């Protein structure tokens, strides 16, 4: 299977006054098309930073990031915006819906920036909301929806431009376990049925168990990776220091 994301010796260093904080320390990574990968690690391990860099929301201090073989640091701001809008769909822990827009308007928003006509936007947004089981809530604003419902709207929004990659940063972090499970099932279905590449950041082994591959990160370094999820997660239980 072809490589869709490739990282070569990626470093991210934040300058906080006179102190240098190393968020990522020389990460190299290859992700194949159609992968369902969970990135797990304790707070402050650098997993969200890694996800931001993969999603073109941030740049590494050092190292290279390739998307479909293209070096993203060589792309113009407009090309990056197009990639974020068309190629990648984001799901955030805080849902990040626009509070003044209704569910359907939030879902249609990424299509506005891709120049899709209004009627088509509306139809596709409706279809997506139906897919996530929110056909009855399309005209509700985020504050009128539960956390689980808001996250489903966010998933529908992430899918609006039919992206190849879905990046989810702690997608169940603000949800109860039942809603969290539902969200993960939607993501697994997207992977199985639509062959989307899905990257999920979590610190919850149960959530990570939905994925097919796992990558453990600690202090900005990859400490383990592989498809033997159960073994890796068992290791976590045995050695809490890993997380």
């Amino acid at each position, binding site marked *: 299977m072809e490589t869709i994301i490739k990282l070569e010796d990626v470093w991210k260093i934040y300058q906080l006054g006179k102190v240098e904080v190393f968020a990522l320390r020389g990460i190299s990574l290859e992700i194949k098309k159609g992968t369902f990968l969970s990135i797990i690690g304790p707070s402050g391990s650098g997993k969200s930073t890694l996800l931001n860099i993969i999603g073109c929301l941030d740049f590494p201090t050092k190292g290279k990031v390739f998307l479909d073989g293209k070096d993203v640091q060589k792309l113009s701001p407009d090309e990056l915006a197009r990639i*974020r809008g068309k190629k990648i769909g984001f799901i955030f822990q805080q849902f990040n819906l626009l509070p003044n827009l209704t569910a359907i308007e939030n879902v249609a928003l990424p299509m506005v*920036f891709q120049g899709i006509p209004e009627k088509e936007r509306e139809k596709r947004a409706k279809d997506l909301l139906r897919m996530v089981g929110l056909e009855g809530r399309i005209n509700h604003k985020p504050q009128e929806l539960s956390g689980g419902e808001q996250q489903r709207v966010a998933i529908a929004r992430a899918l609006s431009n039919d992206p190849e990659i879905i990046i989810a940063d702690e997608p169940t972090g603000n949800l109860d376990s039942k809603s969290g499970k539902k969200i993960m099932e939607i993501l697994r279905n997207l992977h199985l049925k639509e062959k989307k590449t899905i990257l999920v950041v979590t610190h919850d082994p149960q959530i990570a168990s939905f994925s097919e591959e796992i990558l453990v990160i600690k202090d900005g370094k990859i400490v383990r990776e592989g498809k033997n999820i159960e073994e890796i997660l068992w290791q976590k239980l045995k050695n809490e220091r890993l997380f």
Partner: protein
Amino acid sequence: MTTLGILIGVFLICSLLSLSEGLKESIISELRTLGKEVLMIFPGEITDLSSLFTAFFGRGLKIEDETIEKIKKIEGVENVVPLDYGASLVRYKEKTKTVLLFGYPRKEAQELFKMNLGWKLDQGRWPKPKKREVIVGKLVPSDIFPGLKPGDKIYIKGREFLVTGVLKSLGTKQDDSMIGLDIEDYRKITGFRKGSHFALVKIKSGVDTERMAQKIKEVLKETQKRKAGKEEIPFTILTNEKAGSIAGNILALIQIIVFAFASVAIIVGGIGIMNTMFTSVRERTREIGILKAVGAKNSEILIIFLIESAIMGIIGGILGTFLGIFFAKFVEFYGQVHPLLYFKASITPNLILFGFFFSLFVGIISGYWPAKRAAALKPADALRYFE
């Protein structure tokens, strides 16, 4: 709150512009009353705006009858009309009020008023010479003695006078509130038997006004020298041209003041919008991050924020224009009720258009910088903002 800054700015500009324009028109119309072939002599020196007022109201100086006779003899002078004013108690029906009386030699002055100063009757007729008749200003029947009409009788210090006519507006509240009577009657009533506050000099047509003014000055100088031993003459001779230049000076002064105030208003309004826009950008940093994460280009973020600041500017502008006009109208109304300079607030379509486009312009200009900053934010930084 968001549009308050621009609202205050546009409010200040609109009210100031309409009032200053109105004031300008009122002063121009006042100074234009002087006809081409008429010179005005009055005590005091006009050098600036403040001395103009003291010249009119402050000094007790009078032009002596002897001087007037001498001026009459100057070649090229057609006539000299002494004018005087003073307040007195006037009774109409049951009401007694203090009113400004205006004494003028009926026969000569009335012609001059009609022909050279453009005075017109609103109702009735002009008083006839040697009769106990008066003419009243436009505001007398409306404000001072409501219901007064030609044919009615009024009593000035117990003497009965017949009101024969009402004048059309002369341009100022003071002029429109006067009662005009023959100078002989005026002198009997007030007891001022000699001299006058003003004199109008009618010169023959074709004679150079400036040269005449010079000649009159010489006569005045001579009298002054003989009487008080001084060279300087405490009088001003106002010609049509000089009045024009005084008007020019006053207008320039008004324009400088308005420009200064308007500049402050513009800066206040602009800073208000800019501050609002910065606050808005700060408050919505995360929203900008979301927009960028879902594919918005920098230029699109810039446009979104510019449209927003333009809308904010326009809303502030419309409200500011409306309030400014309302305030100017209020001041106009206040000026009519109270004895101030009485003028109309000048509200033109141009002023309204100016308010609209100015606020739009300020909105866009002051929104540009914060919008540019918003557009330049890194998506990850923007998304992390409140986290």
